[in-house]
């Protein structure tokens, strides 16, 4: 869309100016702020800067022409700036940029902006660019909601990388080869895998991991599920596990937390990041406020999240805000595994398959049991074995008892 360039008024008494020299020619690209034309007033010779970015279309006034202030001297085909490209606004007079448009700043003119812009510090913008984060999806914790580095860090901690976070899988078959191979295929890591690689290394380096496993007798849980199904409430075993985790975390807020230097930040809500296996790895969409959700709602949300994850239709908000992760490899027949804590969480629960195995009852008779092994990986900066053990005991009790799972509806 062509923009008109007119002879500017360079002084109170100026009525005309003389075009001395065009500094750009038709067809040339011009950036806002580039010197465009040299004009002469009765007082001085000045360079006039372009108010527009784009391409010079047409020079209407010629060198040597005397032109009245306000008259058209050129046209520029404007190129619309992409969002976030710069803080300049169509301004007053000489085209010097007006100050930052952050909400708390005094606004020096009310010119409309082009498109939505994130309120983020320059550093946050740089980091967002590097990590491929859409700033518009973040909420900032800075003044006026400004996004800062802390928010970027928080965001990175939530996003589940597209890499398997499993440390090792005991029942998996193939032995790991340690020889370096000279031939073979080199597959470049995409951005998400790179991020994941970085984050998992960070987690392992910074959080001293320890692991506590426990077996849960799932017969009652499975019966409960059947009876709910018969009554038209479709829940998966995993949904029941999620609910149990949420209720247990309410009793052990220290595990629903983040390490912060000299303190542990215990989160108000239990937002469970639920691992979903997708085509090239794992995603962990977050189901928020699980401690308050009724089981059918929790089930519905987790189902929707899983569907969107598999369809590749998760948006960034879906991956944000988790406080604890649950990863279930039971559907693959995995008996037991240990996961890596997702920073900035304090712990993660790895769930194995329900297996029918013989156990001793109270009278030392052999009976059949449905045992599911769960393993908590925890950050020893935040918690310890005893606490995790007590958490697991509470979790186990909630699941085996079953009543608490349904008591809220």
């Amino acid at each position: 869309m062509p923009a008109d360039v007119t002879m500017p008024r360079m002084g109170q008494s100026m009525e005309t100016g003389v075009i001395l020299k065009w500094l750009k020619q038709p067809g040339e690209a011009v950036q806002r702020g580039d010197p465009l034309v040299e004009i002469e007033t009765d007082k001085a010779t000045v360079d006039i800067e372009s108010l527009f970015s784009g391409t010079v279309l047409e020079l209407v006034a010629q060198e040597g022409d005397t032109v009245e202030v306000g008259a058209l001297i050129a046209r520029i085909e404007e190129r619309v700036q992409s969002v976030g490209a710069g803080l300049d606004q169509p301004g007053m007079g000489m085209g010097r940029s007006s100050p930052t448009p952050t909400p708390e700043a005094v606004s020096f003119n009310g010119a409309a902006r082009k498109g939505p812009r994130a309120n983020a510090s320059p550093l946050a913008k740089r980091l967002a660019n590097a990590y491929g984060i859409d700033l518009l999806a973040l909420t900032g914790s800075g003044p006026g909601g400004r996004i800062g580095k802390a928010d970027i860090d928080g965001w990175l901690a939530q996003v589940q990388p597209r890499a398997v976070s499993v440390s090792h899988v005991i029942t998996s078959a193939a032995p790991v080869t340690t020889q370096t191979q000279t031939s073979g295929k080199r597959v470049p890591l995409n951005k998400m895998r790179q991020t994941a690689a970085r984050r998992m290394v960070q987690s392992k380096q910074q959080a001293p991991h320890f692991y506590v496993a426990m077996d849960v007798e799932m017969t009652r849980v499975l019966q409960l599920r059947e009876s709910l199904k018969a009554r038209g409430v479709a829940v998966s075993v995993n949904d029941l596990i999620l609910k149990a985790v949420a209720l247990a975390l309410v009793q052990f807020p220290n595990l629903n937390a983040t390490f912060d230097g000299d303190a542990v930040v215990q989160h108000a809500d239990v937002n469970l990041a639920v691992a979903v296996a997708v085509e090239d790895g794992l995603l962990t969409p977050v189901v928020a406020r699980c401690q308050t959700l009724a089981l059918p709602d929790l089930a519905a949300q987790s189902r929707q999240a899983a569907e969107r994850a598999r369809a590749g239709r998760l948006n960034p908000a879906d991956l944000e805000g988790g406080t604890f992760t649950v990863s279930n490899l039971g559907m693959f027949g995995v008996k037991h595994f240990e996961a890596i804590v997702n920073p900035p969480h304090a712990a993660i629960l790895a769930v194995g398959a329900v297996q029918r195995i013989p156990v001793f009852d109270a009278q030392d008779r052999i009976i059949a049991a449905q045992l599911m092994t769960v393993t908590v990986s925890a950050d020893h900066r935040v918690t310890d074995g005893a606490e995790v053990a007590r958490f697991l005991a509470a979790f186990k009790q909630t699941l085996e008892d079953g009543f608490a799972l349904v008591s809220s509806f």
Partner: protein
Amino acid sequence: MTEITYREAIRDAQREELERDPKVFLIGEDLRDPWGGAYKTTQNISAVVGNDRVINTPIAEESIVGAALGAALTGLRPVAELQYLDFVMRAMDAVVNQVAKVRYMSGGQVTVPLVIRAQGGGGRSSAAQHGNSLEAWLCHVPGLFIAMPATPYDAKGLLKTAIRMDDPVFFIEHKMLYMTKGEVPEGEYTIPFGVADVKRRGGDVTIVATSRMVLYALEAAEELAKEGIEAEIIDPRTLVPLDEAAILESVHKTNRLVVVSEGVERCGWAAECVAMVQKCAFSDLDAPIERVCSLNVPLPFQPDMERFVLPSVADIIKAARLTLGKV
């Protein structure tokens, strides 16, 4: 090392350079013994080197600077004193249009080995005509080098360097620093221009401060440390040339900047530092840069009012916390 006052550092530097080079001489008002300068920065000098080399002038700032220039253009190395930085206004043509430009306008025919010393700053109810911090005016003049030391160590080393330079130096002291003490080496030493000093290391916020404000910044840093905020304090020591690299390196590390300068806020030196950092370290900044300067009013006489107008330690603490998103 011995401990001396800032005043003694200035005095010693001048005396040592006078003894070292017969072309050096002092010129200004009230310099000779026994008076030894309004702020005693030339005491015990004329008694030692003679009145020939310590010239007391009439009150005529433009000609003090003009004559010093004439001497500098004809083989000598004068150190001129303006009793108060505020009085440079009387000499501004000589400083701006003559001293700073004669080399350039002559196409490089001459060097101007001239030092102009002056003390500025508020804090003793000297009121609006005797307490200005005008470094911004002088930094705005191409052709001068500007030094602004905060400690005896920096003052002595920089003044000796200034006297040995072949270009004009405006050496800005602070009336409230004269009695402050610090350690200096016993032997000969000089400090190069264009090298900042990290007066304190820290990782959370960078504070760039000049002259007396360096001491304020150090106090502020002690307070900030109590709440776990570690400030890094950069003292540029010379404003022209400026050690941009030291400032940028610090901002790269901390992502936050506070600039403290006693001059009035509007168009003060702090604005220059801010402009440079926002351009060169834009994407290192996690918060807007804060300036802590005097308010945009003349300096009032009454002490409480004066304190209100001048920057304070509390202002610096507040600014630092602001960059960290704390209120």
